[in-house]
């Protein structure tokens, strides 16, 4: 508070020739430049957009009796035929954390008017962003091409009760001399195969031994369809932010290289603004990671 009163006194004296009218300009409201303020308020609005999507995910998830289990769905890893739950998305998180850190370094070098430093750290940031996009492309490819998840199909589900697997005639399926049993909440993936250019999911049947369907035989159905649409839409919207960030970072890095910002002598403020945006993209990922992969 002491600081504020001092700056008020300073303003009235310092701008005496301009009549002290705030509308005369020359004074930055909240001690931040126009561009920085507008970036902050753009990020506020973007935060509401993402919050809306993530809350919609939560509301729809709450309305479903079952929901695919993230540590079962997201368990593939490039070049490895193994079930490694959450390992790859943790890698993606680290890529974004690193690119956030290199971005802070670029902003700091900008404050020191160090052109080489700005370009070097921005280049590493762009590399991080591109790596993230590549990782996301791998994740999407696995889901779409090999696991057949699309915006309107979701072969990942969970059994609503205990049961035994049966064939289409109701005869128990045996493995190693004993019937194949499933437990309530156990995850499954219905494999698909192409038939006349259309993906058809395999037909499996379960005879429930507990719950409201005890004694009945049901076909194992797709999981909640909304899962695929929500996943691709929200992570896609975030990925699009990363993509735009990479484009703008590249433009600003080239401008910095050309000496445009050193000529402005404002401590590379443009780098600071794109830095705010880039950290925000990382911030959103913290919550996408929480909602899609951890909860």
């Amino acid at each position, binding site marked *: 508070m002491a600081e*504020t009163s001092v700056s008020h006194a300073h303003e009235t004296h310092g701008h005496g020739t301009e009549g002290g009218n705030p509308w005369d300009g020359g004074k930055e409201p909240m001690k*931040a430049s126009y561009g920085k303020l507008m970036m902050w*308020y753009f990020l506020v609005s973007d935060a509401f957009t993402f919050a809306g999507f993530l809350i919609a995910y939560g509301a729809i998830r709450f309305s479903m009796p079952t929901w695919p289990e993230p540590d079962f769905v997201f368990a593939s890893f490039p070049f490895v035929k193994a079930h490694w739950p959450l390992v790859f998305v943790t890698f993606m998180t680290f890529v974004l954390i690193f690119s956030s*850190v290199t971005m802070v370094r670029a902003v700091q070098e900008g404050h020191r008017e160090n052109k080489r430093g700005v370009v070097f750290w921005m280049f590493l940031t762009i590399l991080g962003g591109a790596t993230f996009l590549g990782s996301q492309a791998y994740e999407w490819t696995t889901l779409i091409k090999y696991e057949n998840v699309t915006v309107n199909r979701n072969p990942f589900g969970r059994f609503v009760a205990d049961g035994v697997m049966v064939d289409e005639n109701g005869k128990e399926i045996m493995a190693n001399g004993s019937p194949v049993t499933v437990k309530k909440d156990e995850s499954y993936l219905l494999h698909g195969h192409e038939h006349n250019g259309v993906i058809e999911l395999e037909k499996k049947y379960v005879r429930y031994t507990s719950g409201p369907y005890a004694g009945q035989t049901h076909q194992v159905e797709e999981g909640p369809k909304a899962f695929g649409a929500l996943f691709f839409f929200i992570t896609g919207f975030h990925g699009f932010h990363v993509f735009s960030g990479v484009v703008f970072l590249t433009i600003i890095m080239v401008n910095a290289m050309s000496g445009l910002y050193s000529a402005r002598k404002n401590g590379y403020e443009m780098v600071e603004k794109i830095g705010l945006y880039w950290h925000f993209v990382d911030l959103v990922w*913290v919550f996408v990671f929480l909602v899609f992969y951890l909860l």
Partner: protein
Amino acid sequence: MAAHQSYEDQKKLVFYGLKLLAVVTIVEVVFALFAKGHIVPSITFGKDGGFGQALYMMAMIGASLYKAYFIVFFFMHMAHEVRGLVLSVLLPMLLLVWAIIAFFQEGGRWGSAREQIRQKNEEVVQPAPAAKPTGYWLNGTMKG
């Protein structure tokens, strides 16, 4: 303020931030795998639906909020902005508290409506004996 920190101090903050975000993320993931039975198969409180899962979720949300706080206040330098700017960015976020409460309540309602429809669809109703029509005919349609 950031401008008043020495360059070495600023660099230190960056590497502290890297360590902090990395450690919190690793703890989150390991705890998630632990709570969902991937480390000790018999421990599954993270997905059992009861009080354990609620605690698990709150811990995860808390850790994520802490990461978000760190990114906003130190990487985005919110800690060094004037109070008016901080409040004008953070106070609107309080609206989300109500959005979360309201929409999750709504989601629960959709769920119970779905369940009710499922039960009604499966209800076996004895067909009632055909009653004698008591209405009247209008334009070829039975009314009443």
